[in-house]
């Protein structure tokens, strides 16, 4: 292996770029949906009727205790037996979102449970409806509390999206496989793509920190108050 063996890989930059765009798209869309749905699930699992709570608990436990690879296989190869045939990209988005929602629900729930009961009581005593109290009063500090954990989970989702190559979604690691088999530069192709992932992960983490500072953390300090 020497520098010239990387040239073949770099020649394939258009397909690397396509893969990059797909990976970014998968990550951003599923991150957004997963956080929103995870918040709703956290609400349902804490304040919903008993049946809803049990359903969400079961869903969360199931998806946190099975491998993502199995989930994506089941959604892409298994569901057509029920007449639900998804194209690879949709299947990947569904799998990533369902997986992330389960983790996000659990993370946000922990944040809500750390909220002092007084916050909800104060909101009720002011006449706010439970849904208003939840989204206006409980959620913002809870998000602040768990944003670091959420950031890690979102980075994990970015990295997990590599498995979407297994159902032939043309994202980065799929392109790596393609380049590897076209050029026979296996190691070089994977090194380059791994470094791209590393860069993406660092950038994504930075971006989430920025989002946190801009939208999640106020100028307030939750710790200072009970």
């Amino acid at each position, binding site marked *: 292996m020497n520098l010239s063996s990387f040239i073949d890989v770099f020649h394939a930059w258009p397909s690397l770029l396509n893969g990059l765009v797909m990976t970014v798209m998968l990550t951003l869309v599923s991150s957004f949906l997963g956080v929103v749905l995870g918040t709703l699930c956290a609400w349902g699992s804490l304040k919903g009727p008993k049946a809803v709570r049990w359903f969400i608990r079961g869903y969360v436990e199931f998806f946190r205790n099975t491998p993502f690879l199995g989930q994506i296989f089941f959604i892409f190869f298994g569901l057509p037996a029920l007449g639900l045939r998804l194209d690879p990209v949709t299947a990947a988005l569904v799998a990533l979102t369902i997986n992330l929602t389960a983790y996000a629900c659990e993370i946000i729930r922990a944040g809500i449970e750390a909220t002092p009961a007084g916050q909800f009581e104060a909101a*009720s*005593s002011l006449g706010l409806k439970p849904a208003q109290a939840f989204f206006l009063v409980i959620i913002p*500090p809870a998000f602040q509390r768990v944003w670091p954990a959420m950031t890690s989970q979102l980075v994990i989702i970015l990295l997990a999206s590599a498995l979407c190559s297994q159902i032939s979604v043309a994202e980065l690691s799929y392109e790596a496989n393609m380049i590897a088999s076209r050029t026979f530069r296996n190691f070089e192709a994977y090194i380059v793509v791994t470094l791209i992932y590393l860069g993406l992960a660092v950038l994504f983490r930075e971006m989430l920190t920025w989002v946190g500072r801009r939208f999640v953390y*106020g100028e307030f300090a*939750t710790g200072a108050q009970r």
Partner: protein
Amino acid sequence: MSNLASSAALAQASPSSAPSGHAIELVGVNKWYGEFHVLKDINLKVHRGERIVICGPSGSGKSTMIRCINRLEEHQQGTIIVDGIELTNDLKRIDEIRREVGMCFQHFNLFPHLTILENLTLAPIWVRKMPKKEADELAMHFLTKVKIPEQAHKYPGQLSGGQQQRVAIARALCMKPKILLFDEPTSALDPEMVKEVLETMVSLAEEGMTMLCVTHEMGFARQVANRVIFMDAGQIIEMNEPEPFFSNPQHERTRLFLSQILGH
């Protein structure tokens, strides 16, 4: 200015002219936590504009009783009528009552992610559907009243305990409640901050607000209370005007309790 007339003025109607006679009526109220009988046959009628101070040893059920009045806790037996509305499981009625009853907590329970002004305007905007501008004016009015208008754009974590509690009172006032409940509003405060909060409460009392106040500040009780209630083990043991209550308690337990807290 007229729309900013203090909430107290609304509640100033004299007892006789009130539609149902009483601001709050508790009749035969009982409550259990599992096996544990927290409230035992509570009977209490509060007139409009009346100030009532509730005291008693820790665990006697003082908080539980006043929290039943705005349904933060549910009672299992008896009737609670607030401003002529009976508390049932009907959510509409609970909302209606919560709009009329304000509450201040021991630990203030300000919303840490909102500025002081946003804390005050949250409920007027979302519950009363007030336009933001009007809500801001209302909030500034009450912040001025509790003497901290200059803190409007800070966050709760940046204020002292006494200031936070005054914000909490202003927040409750912004809903223009007819009744205010206080649950040990000064007991989480450093001694030098107790005074500023009590002064705020005294000025509310002078404006004729109906107040139920759990506190061990006996000076406050003497100064503003119409009646003082002593609770023990889930029961109202003694209820009297402050003068006879302090100078001549009727029950041994009251006497013991008073000697303990006045002793220090």
